């Protein structure tokens, strides 16, 4: 799963997303760009609610990675 943050989302919104994921035992790969940050979420993301994450402050989009056949 990829979580794409809004352009220039404040640091505290990013911290909240990271804390949300880390306390639920997910590993993350953060990549900070010039305008926005992308968080790669590693783990059993089936247990995560896309809508709940998308509603969090600073989040632009949640992208599910299609499972291999």
């Amino acid at each position, binding site marked *: 799963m990829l979580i794409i943050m809004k352009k220039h989302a404040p*640091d505290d919104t990013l911290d909240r997303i990271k804390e949300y994921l880390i306390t639920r035992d997910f590993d*993350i790969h953060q*990549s900070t760009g010039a305008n926005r940050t992308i968080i790669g979420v590693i783990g059993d993301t089936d247990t995560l609610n896309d809508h709940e994450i998308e509603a969090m402050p600073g989040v632009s989009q949640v992208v599910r990675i299609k499972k291999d056949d």
Partner: protein
Amino acid sequence: MDINEIRTRIDLLDDVLLRIFNERARLALEIGHLKKGLSLPVFDPNREKRIFARMKDENPGPLDDGAIVRLFERVVDESRRLERIMSHQEEEA
């Protein structure tokens, strides 16, 4: 220097990086043990920000600051992952 000499130097530097990454990971695990004993959270956003800010301040180039931050984000992400695995192993033991 020809291409082979440069690649030999890169290989030597990669060996040094490998040892340094693992030494850093060992120290991160020590911190993980201490944090667990003190019931402190694995995620410390202020500490992570200080690491990135310090590395940008110390960056002599030619890698730009964005590249330095992305590299250290990976280092920090993997340290956190290692702490999580250690924590689970200790709980299961």
